[in-house]
């Protein structure tokens, strides 16, 4: 029986190829082919997360930043400083529902300093 390759190993392999300069598309094609062949298509979301984790460990971080208003250059620099990785790519999302503050999501980590969350926490504490 073929031994199942752990997701972490798949992710580390893909991340090392990407950071070495290989084309992202070709790496993902290989991973997709393996998942199809081994009947593990259902794990694709987790595999993507694991690849993002591995890339983050290698210094390439893609982060989602959600704020109530668009970030200015100073704020952008502060976010990148907070994340602290050599290469940070920000995906900025403007969502007025958060009211204020910031929600920062990186692979494997999260910071939710939005007003929305603080109000929710206050409500829960009152219950």
């Amino acid at each position: 029986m073929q031994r199942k390759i752990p997701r972490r190993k798949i992710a580390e392999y893909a991340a090392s190829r990407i950071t070495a300069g290989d084309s992202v598309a070709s790496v993902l094609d290989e991973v997709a082919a393996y998942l199809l062949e081994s009947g593990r298509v259902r794990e694709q979301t987790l595999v993507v997360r694991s690849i993002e984790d591995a890339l983050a460990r290698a210094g390439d971080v893609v982060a989602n930043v959600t704020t109530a208003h668009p970030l200015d250059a100073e704020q952008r620099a502060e976010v990148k400083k907070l994340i602290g990785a050599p290469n940070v790519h920000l995906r900025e999302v403007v969502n007025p529902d958060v009211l204020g503050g910031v929600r920062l999501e990186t692979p494997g980590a999260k910071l939710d300093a939005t007003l929305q969350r603080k109000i929710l926490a206050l409500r829960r504490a009152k219950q």
Partner: protein
Amino acid sequence: MADIAVTELSKGLRDAIAKLDMSEKLESVGIVTRVGDGVAWVHGLTDAGYSEVLEIETKSGIVEAFALNLMEDEIGAVLLGSDQGVSAGDSVKLKGEVLSVPVGPELLGRVVSPLGEPLDGGPAINAKARGLVEREAVGVLGRKHVHEPMMTGIMAIDAMFPIGRGQRELIIGDRQTGKTAIAIDTMINQAKQKTGVVNVYVAIGQKLSKVARLVERLREEGVMDQTIVVATGPSDPASLLYLAPYAGTAMGEYFRDNAQHALMIYDDLTKHAVAYRQMSLLLRRPPGREAFPGDVFYLHSRLLERSSKLSDELGAGSLTALPIIETQAGDISAYIPTNVISITDGQIFMETDLFYQGIRPAISAGLSVSRVGGDAQTKTVKSVSGHLKLGLSQFRELASFAQFGSDLDEATKSQIERGQRLTELLKQAQYQPMSVWEQAASIFAVSEGLFDEIPASRIKDAQRALLTRLWTDHKKDMQELTKGAEKLESGSDAGKLIEKVAKSVAKGFEG
């Protein structure tokens, strides 16, 4: 003052609020990939520690879990509550600490869950201290040998299988043989004799009606003030049944570490092993013998090793354990019973046959043992117990001849009759623990032959009359005797006194 437009003011306020709060840090976060049967599988959180508490953010609030399976791709976390509110996709954070429970005198008189939440309808527990649920046992140098008695008040135990403070004595037997009754009587005795020992009763998967009855009885006997009850019912998640004895031990350790004495009762560890088996199978750990996981021995050994007598340097406190194991059809050679027998410092074996013969407590004198023995006995009881053990063991050897009656020689007949009287003497009603002087005087009277003319069926009446007369007419001497410092022999003052009174009492009961 320049006009400031209201819109500018509100924008300015919004900008100020939108300013990033850099004092907060990025926290590691995982995601629930699947959940069911009380186990949540989490992707991420690669730096989670073994047994670390995880917080799962669900729509209805935070559900706590603890990480038990740390695997390459995911973590198996056992939920500490219902799995109904937890869904795949919920985010999971590390709490940054291992499981702990509130400990301290604030818990006395309360019935709590293994997480320290009140179950008795009383106010929330505001304990100043917290104790770790999983904790290493005290090392060799921190211990002292067991030398102080833990009086159960049950004559058969205190005389023949004495328990000391810091000892682990197993109570083992089939269902409905009086195992919990022994534990309850021991707790009641601590209040009656004002020993100051704190009781911690851990109910593992017990019917809640039984726990309620027990709490009621303890309240009636005035014991609840020095007792903590940690209760889990059969419908509670297996994780809580698994944690209950460890949480209870953490509560008992508080008193041990503060120069006091505590008594742990685990009722019962068989259900504990079954709950752990359930958890392990759901965590996909490989099953071993009888489908138990490979570390089922370690499950109990690390629990019971925390019960100890501390050295004088550490305050000389103690934690005594009375674990209970339920056997099937009297089989003490089964897997879990043999495991726990090898861990503990002795066992009290309860036999169904004795129970139905009316010998209650149904303690098997042949199979029971206390490995601490005389070191944990008061001088008084020790001086009379030798005759008791000898008499009973001779009786056991000859018991099969009892049916021959008149065909036996006089010596054999008298040994059989002595054994029958001793057996009758050791019968004891529930909730009536006996003090040191009561036990010593009763055993002395029978083993010295002072009640030889009394038929075995009237021994208990004669015992009651003897004790009443001694307490009424010689209270000071009995109070002195109960200190346990003096041997009770036929030549001693107390011995002569008891002999005189016993002879006088015996005249009224001779057949």
